[in-house]
């Protein structure tokens, strides 16, 4: 039955009205001849039915023999649709244009994504892909094979260890594996390791050169810790190693005793704006803000067509009510805050491998609602920095020649 209906749609069908005394005879005759009839309604001298377009002339002949008049009430199916379409060239052109645009859009690469690379390498990979013909707007049929693309990208971006290209539909994906950065080469110039800060030596671990300080020794900036001059200066090497020492830092910190903190009450309102070329047009949430104090969080859509960002974006602003609370903290609590602030200050000044050994409040004074504190922080850190080997003294001076 479904096939028959599809057949009618494909080949066309006619909705007919028959009038005459022998309408029933016509129907019986058509059934006897094997003509498929649909939706036959008979009422007295009138009948309506649906017949396939190919069976029309058989029906016409039977009607003529029986003296029954027929009238076409409706034509349906592809043949009639096609004939109507031919009468409207613009409609056909629109259909053709649509199919052409669809085919064109499906034959192009719309996006090129890079996975597994940071921003710098990503830009290089995209540039290399563009150089070999893989870019948004490229014809998929003209793309080289994946092996060729991979080899070309690898050749153009030396920072990559591997590259894979996969094109799925209108989307191309380049997956890359960057090379592990090379190990820094050992310095070849002879040098010393000297103190970078005044400190008390804790331990010195020399991988090359001679240690010239002892644990517990106080050193000043520029003092040699690991010497690169060996065998009384006859041989010079690039000294290397770590010199861990205790360093003292002094920080002056101010802490307010009266603290104001904003707390979210949990109530919020949402406003939506349509950003049109920089101007925000409100589309939702027109009421004035009911909160005396508030904070805002914004989220914006990223609507795109291919690589192009649309000038129209929806911005959602959520306004949260806040309640400001003020209280006075104790001097002890303020001191703890001062120690924490001083530690944060010191962490920024010492090396990455350092650690805080201890802290002491040297001086604390409360004035004008604030705690003014001087905090000493002791740290353990590597204070060694590369230093030049000073030139050897002149041989004549060593020989004890008479001066002046």
């Amino acid at each position, binding site marked *: 039955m479904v096939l*028959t209906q599809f057949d009618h749609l494909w080949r066309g069908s006619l909705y007919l009205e028959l009038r005459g005394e022998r309408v029933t005879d016509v129907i019986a005759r058509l059934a006897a001849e094997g003509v498929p*009839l649909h939706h036959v*309604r008979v009422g007295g001298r009138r009948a309506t039915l649906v017949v396939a377009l190919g069976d029309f002339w058989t029906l016409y002949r039977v009607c003529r023999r029986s003296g029954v008049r027929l009238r076409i009430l409706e034509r349906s199916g592809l043949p009639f649709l096609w004939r109507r379409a031919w009468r409207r060239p613009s409609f056909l052109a629109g259909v053709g244009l649509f199919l052409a645009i669809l085919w064109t859009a499906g034959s192009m690469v719309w996006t090129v994504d890079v996975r597994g690379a940071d921003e710098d390498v990503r830009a290089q990979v995209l540039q290399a892909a563009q150089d070999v013909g893989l870019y948004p707007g490229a014809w998929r049929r003209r793309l080289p094979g994946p092996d060729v693309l991979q080899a070309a990208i690898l050749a153009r971006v030396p920072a990559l260890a591997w590259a894979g290209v996969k094109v799925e539909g209108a989307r191309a994906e380049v997956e890359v594996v960057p090379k592990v950065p090379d190990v820094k080469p050992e310095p070849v110039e002879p040098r010393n390791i000297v103190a970078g800060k005044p400190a008390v030596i804790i331990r010195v671990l020399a991988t090359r050169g001679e240690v010239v300080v002892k644990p517990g020794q106080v050193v000043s900036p520029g003092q040699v810790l690991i010497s690169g001059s060996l065998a009384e200066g006859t041989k010079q090497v690039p000294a290397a190693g770590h010199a861990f020492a205790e360093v003292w830092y002094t920080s002056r910190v101010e802490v307010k005793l009266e603290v104001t903190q904003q707390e979210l009450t949990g109530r919020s309102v949402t406003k939506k704006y349509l950003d049109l070329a920089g101007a925000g047009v409100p589309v939702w949430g027109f009421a004035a803000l009911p909160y005396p104090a508030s904070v805002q969080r914004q989220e914006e859509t990223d609507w795109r067509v291919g690589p192009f960002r649309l000038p129209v974006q929806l911005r959602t602003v959520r306004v949260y009510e806040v309640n400001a609370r003020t209280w006075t903290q104790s001097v002890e609590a303020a001191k703890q805050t001062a120690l924490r602030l001083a530690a944060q200050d010191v962490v920024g000044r010492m090396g990455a491998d350092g650690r805080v050994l201890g802290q002491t409040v040297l001086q604390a004074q409360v004035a004008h609602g604030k705690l003014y504190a001087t905090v000493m922080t002791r740290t353990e850190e590597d204070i060694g920095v590369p230093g030049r080997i000073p030139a050897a003294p002149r041989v004549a001076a060593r020989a004890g020649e008479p001066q002046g």
Partner: protein
Amino acid sequence: MRAWKRRLQRAAAEMFALPPDALADVCRVTCTDGAELVVENVTAIRRVSDTRIEVDCGRFTLAVEGESFEVTYISGREMHVQGQVAAICYQRRGGAAL
């Protein structure tokens, strides 16, 4: 000859425990909920109107009475009817209604 053939088909259907319409060329009427009627092995259509349909099934005439009949499909020896079926009547040739 035709009667002999029909008897043989009926005997074969009984022997193999098959439904009679499997081998014998008989008219089969299927009525669903009094609203849809399918008649198979129709020999000819005698009369079609919106209240009565008569079809020739060979050894008898099948008459269906009701209202708002619409023959949704006729093809060869099959006919589909929709409407409100009130009565289905078999009339033997030259005899009374069954």
